[in-house]
């Protein structure tokens, strides 16, 4: 159920991005002098099931009517509730602010990837991709927290009483068992030398998504938004997932150990085709990429 919500949220986020950016497929980059590009939240400690805002702020020196080719991160772990865009021009340039209302459905850390903006840098005439800062938010218990609410004080007292009783009882039982064991302990023989205990594996953070989850998100995005921009974003996400860095080419990526699986290499190739083929071939290329994703997920 929750996974379904995430999938819908991801799809909605993509549709929103397409609306904002006009689609990277248009490939018309504006000449901009980007002074600042910031991703922030309106609260340092968002609460479970309580809406909060993600805010993207861009300042450019030029006076423009719109900021195109702005790509928001895939908000797979947050539900999208709304989106507001404000653009203001002044003699010093243009301020673009996008406020996205989101809700978290689980507690713990949630990493939000940077937003990106593609434009031609007016300073040197070169096409560039600007990235904002990324965010990691920690979602705490909110309205669903059993200790919150009007009768919080009474429930809190009751909660502490029960907790102390459980802990106290537990300690007494442990001490009694220990006394019993030590009293009847057999004579010890030296144990053979043992190899040291392997270090405990760090627990996975709640928000860490498996590779399967990420590929599932990618499939949802590609199905929901069948255009060049989503193909390019999914390609970038899959490359990041297998550890490829920005600026590599397909030939480099196919050399990586994670890409040796025939199904993964087929996916990489189909995404490359979807990212660079001509417009008439885009739909079959996206079908091909979806089929490759389904083959991995099946």
């Amino acid at each position, binding site marked *: 159920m929750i996974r379904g919500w995430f999938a819908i949220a991801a799809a909605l986020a993509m549709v929103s991005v397409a609306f904002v950016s006009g689609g990277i497929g248009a*490939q018309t*980059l504006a000449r901009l002098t980007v002074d600042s590009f910031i991703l922030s939240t309106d609260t340092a400690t968002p609460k479970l099931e309580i809406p909060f805002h993600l805010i993207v702020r861009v300042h450019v020196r030029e006076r423009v009517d719109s900021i195109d080719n702005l790509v928001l991160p895939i908000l797979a772990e947050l539900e999208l509730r709304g989106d507001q865009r404000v653009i203001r021009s002044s003699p010093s340039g243009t301020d673009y602010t996008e406020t996205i209302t989101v809700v978290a459905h689980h507690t713990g850390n949630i990493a939000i990837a940077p937003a990106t903006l593609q434009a031609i840098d007016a300073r040197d005439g*070169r*096409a560039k991709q600007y990235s904002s800062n990324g965010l990691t938010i920690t979602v705490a218990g909110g309205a669903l927290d059993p200790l919150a609410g009007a009768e919080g004080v009474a429930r809190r007292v009751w909660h502490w009483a029960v907790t102390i009783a459980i802990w106290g009882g537990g300690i007494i039982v442990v001490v009694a068992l220990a006394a019993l064991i030590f009293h009847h302990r057999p004579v010890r023989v030296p144990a053979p030398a043992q190899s040291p205990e392997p270090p405990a594996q760090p627990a996975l953070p709640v928000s860490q998504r498996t590779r399967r989850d990420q590929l599932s998100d990618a499939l949802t995005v590609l199905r929901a938004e069948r255009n060049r921009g989503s193909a*390019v974003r999914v390609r970038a996400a899959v490359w990041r997932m297998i550890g490829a860095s*920005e*600026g*590599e*080419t*397909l*030939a480099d990526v*196919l050399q990586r150990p994670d890409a040796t699986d025939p199904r993964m*290499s*087929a996916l990489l*190739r*189909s995404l*490359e*085709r979807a*990212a*660079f*083929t*001509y417009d008439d*071939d885009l739909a079959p290329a996206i079908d091909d990429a979806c089929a490759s994703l389904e083959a991995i997920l099946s």
Partner: protein
Amino acid sequence: MRQLGSDPIVTEKSPAYLVNALAQTIVGQREVLDGLLLALLCNGHVLLEGPPGLAKTLACRSLAAALEGEFKRIQFTPDLLPSDIVGTRVFDQREGAFATVLGPIFANVVLADEINRAPAKVQSALLEAMQERQVTIGPQTHSLPDPFVVMATMNPLDSEGTYALPVAQMDRFLMKVNVGYPSPAEELQILDRFAVADTQPVRAVASLDDVKRWRAGAHAVHIDEKLKHYIVDLVARTRGARGISLRSDRGHAVDAGDLIDYGASPRATLALANLARARAFMDGRDFALPDDVRAVAPHALRHRIGFNYRITTEAVTPERAIEALVADVAAP
């Protein structure tokens, strides 16, 4: 369309089939064969640099034979005249009139051997014909055959008595391919293959009309907008290479910007795009990829970048400098 990344489908009358046919005669030198075919698909000319005896002439002759085209070889010498290349008018005593004798440049594949041995006047005559694809002899202008590809060779070892090609003329070559020595295994294969006869004839596997068809196909290959920006960025980086650090053979860091006097011209931008298209076509695709651009970049850039004396004093090879330049620009 074939699966991206798999081996090209080799069918008769395809560029890959032609390369395979050439490879039956020429051992190794795959880069040279691919370069010749890329130039053919782009309607451009190739500069081959390498020591003597590396099958440069054989490759060009085999290419012409495989296409049922005409092959001519011109040995450039210091006493060569422009008329020795383009042709001249001679008086026909029987007819009592001047007749035009066309020069060896009227062929589909022309090998200009050791182009830097002839003075500037002769080089200019050849390069003008390469650019215009026609020559004027007396009052008449003659179109050169189509396809028309010039493969010029230069010997890097023996520079005494040579005339360096001017920058503007070098720029007219679509690409420059460095011809290297074969591997020991390839050299053994050469011994076996040529033990019986000097050369093994190449059978015709395609026609000149096929070449025209391939050329149209390569021209129609799609180049995405992101790729165009990548190409422009690559060429622009050759003009402002400061900040790219590379390691010299002596082990210290060198700034690439200190090694370059001038970068590549806009012709390099066009050459990169055309070569990337042709490579995609040879690979059986109708759209180009960043890998295509990266693969052809050294061929399109190496003769268009002006390295200064420091590349020698700092013990850095031009190839390594170009490699660093290409690696510095992030692919889309």
